[in-house]
C-alpha cells in the first residue's frame, strides 16, 4: 500500500508516525495538529460552527491568527474602506477575543501574510504538523514540518479537537541536482519543477524537495519552493532540517530557549529521510539547465524559460491540451511563436506568500537600484510580507531604492496576489507578478498574470518587458 515502507523512513513517514493518535480500519488516521494558523477569510464560518455547537477551542496556545487577505496596503489610519472587507477583519478580531486566541491585528508591527509571520515569529517549528485554511500552508514544510492547507470545515475540526482525519499520502522526492546558474532563484527552480511534473503531477503526494540546489537555498528560498508545492498538486512540500534551518529558527519569539532548545535541536536533526528510504516516485531535475522562468498561460505549468517563444497549440498532439492552450493564449492576448521577451507589461507586483520576504525584496532592489521604472509600466508595487519585513527593509534602505525608481512601497498583506483588497488588475492589464497563481481573473477580472521571480519582476519593471535579469543593461 502507498506510503508504507520497510526499512528506511522518509521525512514524511517520520513526522506522520509521530502524530498518529488512532487509526480506522480503512487506514483513515486521526492525526494530531501542533499548530494552526488562522486568517480572516476561511475562519468566520468555523468559529460560527463552534458557537452553534456550543464547543470551545481544544488548545488556544496552538493557534495564531492574523488578518492578511483583506487589509489595505495603503494608509491604514482610517481603517478599511470596503465595508465587506472591514466586517470580515472585525469578525476575526471579535472571534479571537471571544475564544482567547492570539492575534496579530492589522496595526500590529507583527501583522503580515500568515505564511510569512508564522516562521518569522518562530511559531513554525521543525517536526510539527501545521495547518491553515489556506492552500499555501505548504510553505511551512521548508522547516522539516508537515504543513498543508485545509478547508473551513477542517479549520473548525482542528479548533474543536486539535486533530484531523487524514489518509496518508504517497511520497515523492524531487531532487534538484547540481547548482543553479546566475540569475536563477528558488522561484525559477519551483516553476521549472511545475513545468516538468505538471499542476496535477503531485496530486496525492507529499513532496520532499532535496538535492544540492535545494540544500544551497536559504530558508526564504526553501519557503518559496515549498509554497508552490500546491501548484504542482501536492498539499504538502517539505525540506529536511539542516544547519540553515536551525540557524533561522533560533532566537525567535516563540522558539524554545535554554535546555529546551538543546533538546529540540537534537531531535530536529533526525528530521531527514533515511538513506535507504523508499519514495513512491522520484523526479530528478538538473539545476544547471534551469533558466529564469516566465509563465505564459493560465496555469502555473504553462511556463517557459525567458529566452523561449510562446508555444503553438497546432504542434500539440493531445487535443484536450491543445484546446487548453488556445483558450489560455486567447485569454492572455498572446500569439504563438512570439518571443517571451517581446511581451510588454502594464504592472509589476512584488509580494505574496511566495516572494515577499527580506531576501526577495533585496533581490528586487538590487536590480532596481540606480534604474527607473519603464514609461509603459503604469504601476510597480512592492508589498512586504509583514510589518517586520517592512521595518527591516527600511533599515536597509530598500524602500528608498524602490521609491527613487518610481516603484510604490506599501503596507504588508496578500494584496494583488488575489486582489481581495483594493489592489487589482483591470481587464486586459498584464502583470509581471512574484505571486503563485496565473489563473484567469486571479489578480482581477480579465487581468493577465505572468509568474516570475522577484529579480525578474524588477527587471520587467525597469525594461518594460520580460528580460533575462542577467541581460539588463
Amino acid at each position, binding site marked *: 500500500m502507498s506510503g508504507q515502507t520497510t526499512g528506511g523512513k522518509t521525512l514524511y513517514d517520520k513526522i506522520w508516525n509521530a502524530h498518529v493518535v488512532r487509526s480506522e480500519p480503512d487506514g483513515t488516521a486521526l492525526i494530531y495538529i501542533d499548530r494552526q494558523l488562522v486568517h480572516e477569510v476561511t475562519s468566520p464560518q468555523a468559529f460560527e460552527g463552534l458557537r452553534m455547537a456550543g464547543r470551545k477551542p481544544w488548545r488556544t496556545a496552538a493557534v495564531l491568527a492574523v488578518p492578511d487577505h483583506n487589509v489595505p496596503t495603503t494608509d491604514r489610519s482610517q481603517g478599511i474602506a470596503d465595508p465587506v472587507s472591514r466586517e470580515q477583519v472585525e469578525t476575526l478580531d471579535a472571534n479571537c477575543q471571544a475564544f482567547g486566541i492570539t492575534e496579530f491585528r492589522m496595526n500590529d508591527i507583527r501583522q503580515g501574510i500568515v505564511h510569512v509571520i508564522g516562521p518569522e515569529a518562530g511559531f513554525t517549528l521543525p517536526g510539527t504538523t501545521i495547518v491553515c485554511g489556506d492552500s499555501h500552508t505548504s510553505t511551512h514544510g521548508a522547516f522539516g514540518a508537515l504543513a498543508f492547507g485545509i478547508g473551513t*470545515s477542517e479549520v473548525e475540526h482542528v479548533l474543536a479537537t486539535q486533530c484531523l482525519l487524514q489518509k496518508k499520502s504517497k511520497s515523492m522526492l524531487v531532487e534538484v541536482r547540481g547548482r543553479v546558474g546566475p540569475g536563477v532563484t528558488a522561484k525559477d527552480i519551483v516553476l521549472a519543477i511545475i513545468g516538468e511534473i505538471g499542476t496535477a503531477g503531485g496530486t496525492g503526494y507529499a513532496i520532499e524537495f532535496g538535492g544540492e540546489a535545494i540544500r544551497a537555498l536559504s530558508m526564504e528560498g526553501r519557503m518559496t519552493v515549498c509554497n508552490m508545492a500546491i501548484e504542482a*498538486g501536492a498539499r504538502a512540500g517539505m525540506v529536511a532540517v539542516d544547519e540553515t534551518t536551525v540557524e533561522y529558527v533560533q532566537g525567535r519569539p516563540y522558539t524554545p530557549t535554554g535546555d529546551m532548545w538543546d533538546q529540540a535541536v537534537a531531535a530536529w536533526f533526525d528530521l531527514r529521510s533515511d538513506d535507504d528510504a523508499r519514495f513512491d516516485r522520484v523526479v530528478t531535475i538538473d539545476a544547471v539547465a534551469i533558466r529564469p522562468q516566465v509563465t505564459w498561460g493560465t496555469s502555473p505549468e504553462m511556463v517557459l524559460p525567458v529566452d523561449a517563444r510562446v508555444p503553438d497549440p497546432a504542434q500539440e498532439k493531445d487535443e484536450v491540451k491543445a484546446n487548453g492552450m488556445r483558450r489560455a493564449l486567447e485569454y492572455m492576448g498572446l500569439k504563438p511563436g512570439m518571443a517571451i521577451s517581446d511581451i510588454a507589461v502594464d504592472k509589476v507586483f512584488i509580494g505574496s506568500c511566495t516572494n515577499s520576504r527580506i531576501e526577495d525584496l533585496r533581490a528586487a532592489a538590487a536590480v532596481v537600484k540606480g534604474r527607473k521604472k519603464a514609461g509603459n509600466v503604469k504601476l510597480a508595487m512592492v508589498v512586504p510580507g509583514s510589518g517586520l519585513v517592512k521595518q527591516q527593509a527600511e533599515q536597509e534602505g530598500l524602500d528608498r531604492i524602490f521609491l527613487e525608481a518610481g516603484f510604490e512601497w506599501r503596507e504588508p498583506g496578500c494584496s494583488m496576489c488575489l486582489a481581495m483588497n483594493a489592489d487589482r488588475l483591470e481587464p486586459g492589464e498584464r502583470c509581471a507578478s512574484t505571486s503563485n497563481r496565473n489563473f484567469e481573473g486571479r489578480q482581477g477580472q480579465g487581468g493577465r498574470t505572468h509568474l516570475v521571480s522577484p529579480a525578474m519582476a524588477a527587471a520587467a519593471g525597469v525594461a518594460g518587458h520580460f528580460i533575462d535579469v542577467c541581460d539588463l543593461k
Partner: protein
Amino acid sequence: MRKFETMTGKVVPMDRPNVDTDAIIPKQYLKSIKRTGFGVTLFDDWRYLDPGEPGMDHGKRRENPDFVLNQPRYRGGQILLARKNFGCGSSREHAVWALDDYGIRVVIAPSFADIFFNNSFKSGLLPIVLPEDVVDRLFQETFASEGYALTVDLEAQTVVTPSGQAYAFEVDEFRKYCLLNGFDDIGLTLRHADEIRAYEARRAREAPWLFN
C-alpha cells in the same frame, strides 16, 4: 451534515481540464462570513458578462448565453461532469458551498485536486472519480441527448446511465459511512477525546518545547 441519498440528476458538462476554485467562486465573494448564498455567483466570471461584486442583485446581471450553466438544456442540473484535476488551486471551501448552494450534489471527473476532494465530503457533496475513457463516454452521451441524467447510488457505489450501464466507483469506507449517515466529523472525533489527551501527555514528554 445532510445525508447523501441515492439520486437521479441531470448532467452538466464542464468540458475543460484544471478548473480551479478561483473560477468556481471568485475571490470577491469570499468576504462573506456566511456559509450560504454562494450558488448565484458559482462560476461568476464565466457565467455573467458584467463584472460581479458582493451585494449586487445578481438576478439583474447579463448572463453569458454560451456558458454551460446558462444553456436551457443544462440549467438546474445536479451532477457536474468535469475533466481532470477539478478543483485545483485555492483551499476555499466556498467552492464546495457554491456548488452545493446551486444544487449540485455530485461531481464526476477523472481526477480531483486533493483539498477540494476532501472539502466536498464535509458538505455532503460527493466527488466521484471514474476512468478517463468512461468520463469521455459520459461527455459524449450528455452532448448527444438532451435531459441526460445519471443515477448515483452511494450505498452500491455505482453511477448508472439511462441505458442501464452501471459504472462502479471507489470511496473510502469511513467517508461513505459519514456521508450516508450525515455524521458530523467533529462529534465523531470527540468520542476519542481520551485518546487525544493521552497522545498529548505522551507528546509533551517527548517534545516538551511544543507544549510550553
